[in-house]
C-alpha cells in the first residue's frame, strides 16, 4: 500500500515536472530539477509567467501523462506546483 502511494506521488510530481518543461521551458536548471523532483521545491505558478497558451499546454501535458483533466481556468485557484500535484493525487485516488 505504501509502495503504491509513493509510486502515485512520484508519478504526479513527474507529471508536473514534465508539463512545466513544455509550458515554461526556461524554468529548470540542473539544481532546480533535482530539488523539484526531490520535492524540496514548491514553485508559485505566478512566478513562472505562463501565458494563456502556456497554461493550455501545461494542462494538456498533465492530462496526457496522468489522465487527469485539469482546466486552464482552474490554475488561478491552484497557486503553486505543490497544489497542482495535490490536485492530481486527489484525482488519481
Amino acid at each position, binding site marked *: 500500500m505504501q509502495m503504491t502511494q509513493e509510486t502515485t506521488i512520484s508519478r504526479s510530481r513527474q507529471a508536473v515536472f514534465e508539463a512545466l*518543461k513544455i509550458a515554461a521551458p526556461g524554468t529548470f*536548471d*540542473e539544481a532546480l530539477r533535482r530539488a523539484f523532483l526531490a520535492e524540496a521545491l514548491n514553485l508559485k505558478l505566478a512566478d513562472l509567467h505562463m501565458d494563456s*497558451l502556456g497554461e493550455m*499546454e501545461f494542462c*494538456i501535458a498533465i492530462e496526457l501523462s496522468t489522465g487527469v483533466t485539469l*482546466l486552464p481556468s482552474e490554475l488561478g485557484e491552484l497557486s503553486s506546483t505543490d497544489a497542482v500535484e495535490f490536485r492530481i493525487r486527489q484525482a488519481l485516488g
Partner: protein
Amino acid sequence: MSSDRLMNAESPGQRVCAADSMAPPSDRLERAYRVYCKRIARCRTVNQLNQVHIALANYMTPEEVRFFDGALARDPVASPDREWVSKMTRFISKRESWAAEFRRKGILKGMTLYTADIGSCAGKTLIIGFTGPFHRLGLPSPLLLGCLNPALYDVVLLRDFSKRFFSKGIPGLGADFFQALPNLKSHVDPTAYRNCIALGASSGGLPAVLAAILLKLNRGVSIGGLDFPRFAAKLRDFGVSDEPYAALLASRPDPFPELLLVFGAGYATDVVAARGLHGRVPSRLLEVKACDDHLVLAWKLLRGRLPKFLSKVLGQSVDTGQRVEESLADASADSADRPLP
C-alpha cells in the same frame, strides 16, 4: 496524439496536406474542414479540444481560417470551435488588392513553407521564421501570414521539436544548427530571392540572428530573444558545445546582415537580454514602448498595429515590399515604438 503531430510534415496526414496544396482550393479547404470536424468529434475534454486548436493555429493559412469560419458559422449551435476560429478571423483582414493566397507546403518535420502560386522568387522576400517553444512566432501563424502580401513574400517556419534552440538541427536537413541551415537551400534557396530575412521570437530569437550571420542574409531579427550567455549555458546543459556559436556571433562576414533586437520596454528579462546582445554584435535596438509583454507581436496585434510594426521590423512594407527603413529612425512614425541608437 501529440499536438505537434497533428499537421506534421512526416505524418501520413501531412503528406495528404502537401498533395492537397495542388488541389483546387474549394476541394482542398472542404477536405481540411472535414478532417477537422472528425478530429473535433473525437475530443472528449477541453484539453483535447485545445490541443487540436493549438496545433492547427500553428500551421493554418489565413485562407483556411476564413473558410473554417464560414463553415462553422453555418453551425446553428454556438460551440467552442466556432469561438476559436472567429477569434482568429477577427484579426485577419482579406485584402482585396492581394491577388493570391498563401498555401502551406509541409516539406519536412520542422520545416513548413508558405507560398503563393504567383510571381517569381526573384521578386519576393523570403522570411525564415525561427519559432519559439510553442512552434509559433509568438502568435498563431495565420495571423502573421495575414499581414504579408503573398505576392511579395514567402515564409518558411522552422520548428525546434527537440526544444534545444535548434542545436539539434532540423530532421531531414542536418543534425545540428550548422549542418541544417546551409541545407535549407535544397528546399528553398534564400539566394534565389530578392532578399531574405531571418525572424525569430523568444527562444528562436538568437538562432535567427545567428542564422542571418551564418547565411549572410539581408537581415536578422530577434524578438524577445535571449542574450548569448544564457543561450550558451542552456546549450551546455543540453551537452552541446557553445564554442562554434560564440565564434559565429563574434565573426563579421562580409556582407554582414542588418541585425535588429526587438523587446517590450516593460518586460525586464527581454530588456536586459537585448541590451546585452546589442553589446556583443553590431545591431540596433527597437524598444516597444509601454509593452510589458514577452510576446511583442501578439501585443501589437491586439492593438491593431501589427502590419505597420512588421513593416518596421522587416525594414520593408508588408503590403508593397518597398523599403521603410526610414521609419525605424523616426520616432514620430509610431509613438508607441521608440527606436534606440
